[in-house]
Every structure is written in C-alpha cells, then in structure tokens.
C-alpha cells in the first residue's frame, strides 16, 4: 500500500448499501471543494468515487447488505487520494475492465467513468482483516 503522509482529510464508513451512498457523496463533494477543486471537477470526482462504491456493493459484496465500505480522502502533495476499503472476499482484478463504448448497452459504464476522471486507479495490497483496497488518485495542483 502506498504511504500517505498525515491524517486523512476525511474518513467515511458506510454500510455497503445503495441508500448510504448519498451521504458519502456529500462528504466527498464537501471535502474536495475545501481543497480548491473547481465545482465541475468536484462533481466528476464525486461520480468516480460513487461508481467505485457501486462496484463494491454490486460485485465485491454481491448486492447483499453484508459489509462495510471505508473511504479515506488524503491530499498527498497536491494529489487527492481516495482510498476505498471493503471487507469482502478478494475480487478477481482480471475481470474488472471498461467495456467498448461503441457497444451501446445498459451497464458496464462504471469502470470507464472512474478511468475517465482519475489519473491513476489501482488495487493495493489490503491490510490484514480487510478485503480489497482500491486507490484512486487525481492531481489537483502542480
């Protein structure tokens, strides 16, 4: 796992359920706006983090209300780092890919949206007692 200096700007712990996502989105929005992010980018970051949580709910936990999601937001020297931790069984990273956008069909857009918004997205080694840890990074200053 990458080393992040200092305390997180915000930490959110939610049940892995659809009705918990609004509160998480509100916290992401408020937090990134305090870092000087303009509103259009802020909404993109909210979307990307929300989509990552949706994937955890649907795929890691299989849509069952069985676990939690923890989001830590850091500003690591001008790079916003969104670290999303779940406590589900390990996901098969090879099966997570963006679909062909020319193939117009419902579903499968989340990974594409995350990749469009973030500079870097990667699964990092989970600490003992956790399931999967996804880190998403976005540079906001040079």
């Amino acid at each position, binding site marked *: 796992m990458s080393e992040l200096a200092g305390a997180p700007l915000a930490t959110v712990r939610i049940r892995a359920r659809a009705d918990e996502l609004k509160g998480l989105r509100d916290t992401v929005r408020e937090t990134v706006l305090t870092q000087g992010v303009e509103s259009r980018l802020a909404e993109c970051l909210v979307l990307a983090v929300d989509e990552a949580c949706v994937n955890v709910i649907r795929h890691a936990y299989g849509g069952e209300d069985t676990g939690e999601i923890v989001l830590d937001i850091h500003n690591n020297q001008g790079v916003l780092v969104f670290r999303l931790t779940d406590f589900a069984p390990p996901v098969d990273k090879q099966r997570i890919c963006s679909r062909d956008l020319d193939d117009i069909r419902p579903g499968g857009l*989340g990974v594409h949206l995350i990749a469009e918004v973030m500079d870097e997205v990667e699964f990092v080694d989970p600490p003992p007692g956790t399931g999967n840890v996804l880190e998403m990074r976005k540079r906001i200053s040079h």
Partner: protein
Amino acid sequence: MEYRTRSEGPYTVIALSGEVDLYYSPVAREQILEHLERGRNVLVDLSAVSYIDSSGVASLVEGYQLARTRGLAFGLVGVSPAAMQVLQLARLDKVFPIHASVDERIASDG
C-alpha cells in the same frame, strides 16, 4: 429522486428530479420501461436532475433500446449540466436524441 409524468402531444414526458443514483434508478427504469411497454413514445426530462450515476444512465440506455425495438420514439429533453457532464463522460451525448425542451422536440418532428 422524484418523478412526474404528463402527456404532451404524442409523448409521455417523464420528468426526473434530484439524484438518480443506485438507490433510485430502479424507479426511473420502471417508469421509462412501463410507458414504452404500453406503446407510448417517451421523453425523459432531465432538467431538474442534480446527479446521475451509471445506473441512472443505464436506465436511459435501456429505454432507448426498448424504444428502438418497438418502433417508438425516445429522447431526452432539457438535460441539466450535471446530467450532460455524465453523458459526455460516457460518450452517450451523441447517441441519445437530445432537445432543449419538449416543444423543441415536437417542432423537430415536423
């Protein structure tokens, strides 16, 4: 999210408002598909949508595809900046028929 439906000319207009996310998108999907299943042309008014995620977008795609299958009209009207931003990220802004208003859509039908 809330929704209201009304008839305007040949269309059922489904006006969504608020946040169309994983929790509420099944409601949007149900409304869209129900009217299409009844053989109605459908316009989805997104002017009051403050947030939409991929599940909400998927509901729109499903409506678009069902309409094509049934030979019905489907489109989006008054797309809010927040919704347009997501459609552009998903590269669907050139896929859906999009008009500024219901009146503009009806006028474009000739």
